[in-house]
């Protein structure tokens, strides 16, 4: 499996650390309440298809990435820097 890093180009997936759902970018505000935080920390859509997820290019440029991948086929649809994804809200 190869991941197209926006900075380094296509690299072996072994260079990357996986952190799970990109939902973690959308941290609730401090006053959002227990339910919102419980949902943020524990609940996952876990789709059998397109999944938005966080990867860290640990053995490369050390950038956090947001990738969209089909978890049944491992095909990547898009990879962007997490800071870009967060700023654009996509």
């Amino acid at each position, binding site marked *: 499996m190869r991941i197209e890093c926006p900075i380094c180009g296509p690299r072996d997936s072994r260079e990357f650390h996986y952190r799970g759902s990109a939902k973690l970018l959308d941290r609730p505000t401090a006053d959002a309440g227990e339910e919102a935080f*419980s949902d943020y920390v524990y609940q*996952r859509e876990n789709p059998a298809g397109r*999944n938005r997820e966080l990867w860290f290019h640990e053995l490369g440029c050390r950038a956090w990435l947001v990738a969209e991948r089909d*978890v*049944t*086929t491992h095909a990547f649809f898009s990879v962007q820097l997490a800071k870009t994804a967060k700023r654009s809200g996509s």
Partner: protein
Amino acid sequence: MKYSAWSVFWNGLTGNRGWKPVWRNPEPKPHYDVIVIGGGGHGLATAYYLAKDHGITNVAVLERGYLGGGNVGRNTTIVRANYGLEGNSQFYSHSLKLWENLEQDFNYNAMMSQRSVCNLAHSDGQMDAFARRGNMMRMQGDDSELLTREQIRAEYPYLDHRNGRFPIYGGLRQKRAGTARHDAVAWGYARGADMRGVDLIQNCEVTGIRVEQGVVKGVETSRGYFSAGKVGMCAAGRSSQVAAMAGLTLPIESHVLQAFVTEGLKPILPGVVTFGMGHFYISQSDKGGLVFGGDLDMYNSYAQRGNLPMMEHVAEAGMAMMPMIGKAKMLRSWGGIMDMSMDGSAIIDISPVGNFFINCGWCYGGFKAVPASGHVFAHLMATGNHHPAADKLVLKRFEQGRMIDEESSGATPNLH
């Protein structure tokens, strides 16, 4: 037919014409008191105990593919009760006791073999941790023994005792642990449930769950709609999808775990040996193949196959622990989809949807849990109360901060 030495003898004399298929293939009925979604180990065991212990026989088990074709057919067949935390401890202890009497109970040869599981230790600190864990196992009522370096060397001479990076300091062994014939466990439960009137419906995919005013009414399937008094979900690997049909989100991610088997060899490995430093565990099947597995591929996956980097890692770990396996040829590898929960422990509970019961989040531990999972889940569905062995495995533990986190790794499903 009751299986016995006499039935084998009699059928041998009469040309083996007396053997019949062990379960029916019935046409589904429009209504069931209980519908169990998923015809794997957990679902079949649930149906079996519903019928046997609670007299509820108007039950259907709906299976998308064939019985036992999911994770109960793709694991490394290890049975053990060496958990440390309250909640898991009594549950797996309960399970091991059921395993010990399973074959007599359902009259089927599951080839349960208490050949022991030995975890290797590689430092003084790990020996201390194992001593503590061993004491916890004894306090829960199970057996454990702490083995010294010399005992390990004498009893497991084929391990790499001169490994410089991870020297073997000793080990923790549970003699009542072992392996069982995984498919036969599913078949035995299926037969026992079918004999008591449970309908096992194969090639029947659940496509929707009908919920009215917060209470489940039935399930839509590829073979039509069936109404039900209660619905139980035992669909590990696909739990999130089934739960979503009832409008629920679960604290679960799906990950693939690979396992491997070599060509058949003469008996060399008497029990199960685990190598925690490389996340590697190995046993030898009765057919002679070395069966071993490693860690998750680490990223979410619903593909029932793994990728090569983890295969390489498992092979390296195997070579580090037991160099002689380098001579063996690997015949097959396969992957199973794990429900990795947010604390690494299972969930057996009544869901927020009325009469909809959930049984999921088994992580790597689903196979050894099969008898107890079915037993306590049937108890929960029949009585509405948690069985004492599983009253900590509730869904609300996450929001209430009462996690059962054996690895102390927090809400990171791939690290449990």
